């Protein structure tokens, strides 16, 4: 599944028509990521077990493939996202959760070290105290708590999740596609910079956008009090 997921992300990246991605799960659960890669015994011959584990982990990782997409990404959490499932969800831009869904970084009663970005993305999203609680104790939080913590952006009744997700997607797709990608870049890259550096990045990106037809259309539509028709250039 990891390989297929990365391949899908590659194809989305190459598809110039794709303006937004929704990641969701079939059935009652988003993903509980039970397939935690155990350290193998190792053959002890050509490569040490650590190298084998490193290779196995990189085959299983999917979060970066999602995080590296330049278009907006929504994660519709139709059910529990635990362990690797949560790590994948953390790599999306916005998360919308079904009310019964629960979230945790570790499976209760099993100590496991996150290996797909969880130790880095979770504290950046919800702060270190809550991230450590989830990572160290295997605690599960419900959707309402996740909303309060900033782990998810929206909660919807389970029966309305896909409808709410589609509505959110339509709202985002009504914006300028180049501007949306640049906004994502400014926020994502800017968080790793000092504020002063981030302000310069934003200024440069906003000035590059001044040459786009979309910006001219956005301003014209505002003046003419009509919805804009963005062409994506």
């Amino acid at each position, binding site marked *: 599944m990891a390989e297929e997921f990365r391949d899908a992300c590659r194809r989305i990246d190459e598809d110039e028509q794709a303006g937004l991605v929704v990641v969701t799960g079939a059935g009652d659960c988003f993903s509980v990521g039970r397939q935690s890669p155990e350290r193998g015994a190792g053959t002890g011959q050509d490569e040490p077990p650590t190298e084998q584990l490193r290779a196995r982990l990189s085959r299983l990782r999917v979060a970066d493939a999602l995080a590296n997409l330049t278009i*907006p990404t929504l994660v519709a959490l139709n059910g529990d996202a635990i362990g690797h499932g949560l790590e994948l969800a953390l790599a999306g*831009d*916005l*998360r919308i959760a079904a009310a019964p869904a629960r979230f945790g970084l570790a499976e209760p009663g099993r100590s496991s070290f996150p290996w797909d970005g969880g130790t880095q993305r979770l504290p*950046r*999203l*919800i702060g270190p105290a809550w991230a450590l609680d989830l990572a160290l104790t295997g605690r599960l939080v419900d959707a309402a708590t996740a909303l309060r913590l*900033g782990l998810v*952006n929206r909660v919807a009744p389970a029966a309305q999740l896909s409808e709410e997700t589609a509505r*959110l997607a339509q*709202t*985002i797709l*009504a*914006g*300028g596609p*180049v*501007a*949306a990608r*640049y*906004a*994502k870049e*400014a*926020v*994502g890259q*800017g*968080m790793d910079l*000092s*504020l*002063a550096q*981030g*302000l310069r*990045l*934003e*200024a*440069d*990106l*906003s*000035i*590059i*956008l*001044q*040459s*786009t037809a*979309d*910006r*001219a*259309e*956005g*301003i014209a*539509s*505002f*003046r003419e009090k009509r919805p*804009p028709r*963005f062409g994506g250039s």
Partner: protein
Amino acid sequence: MSAYATLLFEKGDGVAQISLNRPHALNAYNIQMRDDFAEALAAVAEDGEIGALLITGQGRAFCAGADLSEFGAAPSQVIARQVRWQRDVWGQLNNLTKPVVTAVHGYCIGSGLEIALLSDLRLAAADTVFAMPEVHLGMIPAAGGSQTLPRNRNAAAALDLLLTGRRIGAEEALELGLITRITPRSELLGAAWDLALNLVNQSGAPAGLATNGRIGPAIKSALRGGLDLTLPEGLELERRLALINL
């Protein structure tokens, strides 16, 4: 009293108040306001009698965003970039060492919200509507919004507002950390002045002296500076500032 076409400027008791004053245009930020704001901020930075700045808006709204009728005409990118850094009004506001209180009401949209996010204490009237609509106009924020929004909550909350352009009320703005206080509309200005006066008096010095409000700027540089540092570097910054300011 005011020397500016688009701002009201006054000072008293160690506090300067800049009030956006294009009420017929919901205080939409235009080129004249940029130039006035740059001059007023420079005056605030230089004036030893001023210990804190209060930013407000005249009329029905704090600020409805940039005036697109003026900023719409884009010169070449090279010139736009040159102009951006010749008049770096947002850098001036961000780098002001004196604490800044911003009180918003009515509409706090686009650059209006960005002004608030560049300031230190932010309070809103209960009726305030906030939004970051740039992406839906084919743009991105240009007064720091893409940087200040995620630093107040997280990247997901910032992208939620940026990508949807949706409007939120004061309660949600409070939950997202965009503001820290909500007051009834009629009490906003009084509450904002109380906060600003409290800032300049907290060193215990009498108002109007050049030494007053020493602690506010020190706390501001410790917190803001520290956010760009590693923890050990930040602790060292705090130790240095404590030696000077205790």
